[in-house]
């Protein structure tokens, strides 16, 4: 039986720095898996390797039994994996709704020929997508902000929009790079509630998360990464209780 997502023996060096070393793990379908580790452990690099943003020196990624090796980021989205960025990378001069529309696939008129020669067909298809985009925004609680420029949204709203934008792709496996960083209070609980809701709807989540309280509350599984190597894997309570891991995690930070 193959795992839902299987990462095997990833190695990646940037010049002299080995960002990933023989990194292997699996992610189970329908669960929230948190990827934790100190700054520079290689968490974002793993996301980049899974989503085709960088080619690992060695190693393989398999999703639902299909090899993703050598696939482009576009092909990987087609396979049902989408990721957010630690630094958001939203289209800040577009509206929230336009950002979600940008995430949706198979638009009619996304090339000039159809846009020019079949304008009515294009307009009708777009009108239908507008409704779907509004539904996605409502789902993450941003319906009221649909027509606001992203640069005018609060940071918490922008974080929610990042998730909305990749939900719009229709992906089944969502890779979220620090979705709660910089948030507190209501904004933090909004994101946490959204992640649980997505899980309940059948999505699988791999989440980079620094906040141990968040990990404790949302994670089913925890992967602990240190210097590019997976050094522990298990239930959140076990990982958090491990004094050796706490030493690595907090020792490095102080």
């Amino acid at each position, binding site marked *: 039986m193959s795992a839902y997502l299987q990462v095997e023996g990833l190695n990646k060096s940037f010049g002299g720095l080995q960002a990933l070393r023989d990194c292997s793990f699996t992610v189970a379908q329908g669960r929230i898996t948190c990827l934790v580790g100190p700054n520079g452990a290689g968490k974002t690099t793993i996301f980049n390797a899974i*989503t085709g*943003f960088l080619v690992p020196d060695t190693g393989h990624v398999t999703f639902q039994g299909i090899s993703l090796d050598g696939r*482009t*980021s*576009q092909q*990987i*989205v*087609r396979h049902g994996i*989408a*990721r957010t*960025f630690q630094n958001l*990378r*939203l*289209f*800040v*001069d*577009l509206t929230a709704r*336009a950002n979600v*529309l*940008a*995430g949706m*696939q198979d*638009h*009619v*008129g*996304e*090339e*000039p020929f*159809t*846009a*020019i020669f079949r*304008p009515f067909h*294009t*307009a009708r298809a*777009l009108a239908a*997508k507008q409704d779907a985009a509004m539904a996605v925004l409502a789902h993450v609680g941003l319906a009221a902000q649909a027509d606001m420029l992203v640069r005018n949204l609060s940071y918490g709203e922008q974080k929610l929009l990042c998730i909305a*934008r*990749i939900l719009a*792709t229709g992906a089944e496996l969502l890779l979220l790079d620090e979705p709660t960083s910089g948030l507190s209070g209501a904004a933090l609980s909004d994101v946490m509630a959204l992640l649980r809701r997505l899980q309940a709807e059948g999505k699988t989540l791999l989440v980079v998360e620094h906040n141990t309280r968040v990990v404790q509350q949302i994670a089913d599984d925890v992967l602990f990464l240190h210097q590019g190597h997976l050094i522990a894997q298990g239930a959140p309570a076990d990982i958090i209780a491990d004094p050796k891991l706490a030493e690595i995690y907090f020792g490095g930070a102080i």
Partner: protein
Amino acid sequence: MDFFYTYIVLAEIYVLLGLSTNLLVGIVGIFSVSQAAVFGVGAYLTAFLVMQTSTPFLVAVLLSSILCIGLNILVTLPSLRVSGDYFVVTSFGIQLLATAVFTNWTGGTGGANGLPGVPAPWIAGHEFVEPSEFAVLATGGMALGCIAFWLIMRAPFGALLRAIREDELAVAALGKSVLRAKVSAAALAGAFAGSAGGLYASFLSFIDPSSFDLDASIFLLTMVVVGGARTLAGSVIGPFVLLALPQILALIDIPSSVAAAARQLIYGLLLIAFMLFRPQGLLGEKL
């Protein structure tokens, strides 16, 4: 009256060029300084086809547009490999290369002396000689260009181009092909520039390399800066405003050599002033 219609026709032809430049520079963010070269190829090819092979005018313009689609894809391809600032240098090289060919290939282009005797268009037994008659054609061409531009900008293709301008990596992460979108935009910009070239050659009946050199490319950028980036209104108003200037200078009683220098001076000042004080142009958005 011819004076007025000549202005209208030229401004309308430059609207097509403005759309082309706006699409590439304003919307996709490919900073090309060689759009006049593509314009020139369209002009010379149309001239060649109607003069040497007696191809009907509309067919010649269509063929010129098709060639310029391919050509513009080719000249913008380097922008996919080298980033922003470096592409400007590449594009500069392409423009110089084109000027060298236009000036020295005397057999094909008439060289620096230019190519006289491009016949006026014949369509369905009617000859469009007078500027007032040609204005009908130019208006038609401009209208088609504007409609096409308007349609793509409100379609998902326009949205994709805007997203690409903001963040290519994020677009790729959403499963979209940045390459395909850029190539499509370059193709469309090529079609606009090529058909503008065909109209230009047929209207003036005389073309020479000075209309298609680096100054001309910079003039096209000035139109986008003054008119405003990324909007249809900006692409239309820019050429009408800038081409009014030589007409106004012609009304003032000064020697033509002085007028030409004054024009360059004013264009330069406008470019600087708009970039500093009104980067969104008259009716557009910030470049």
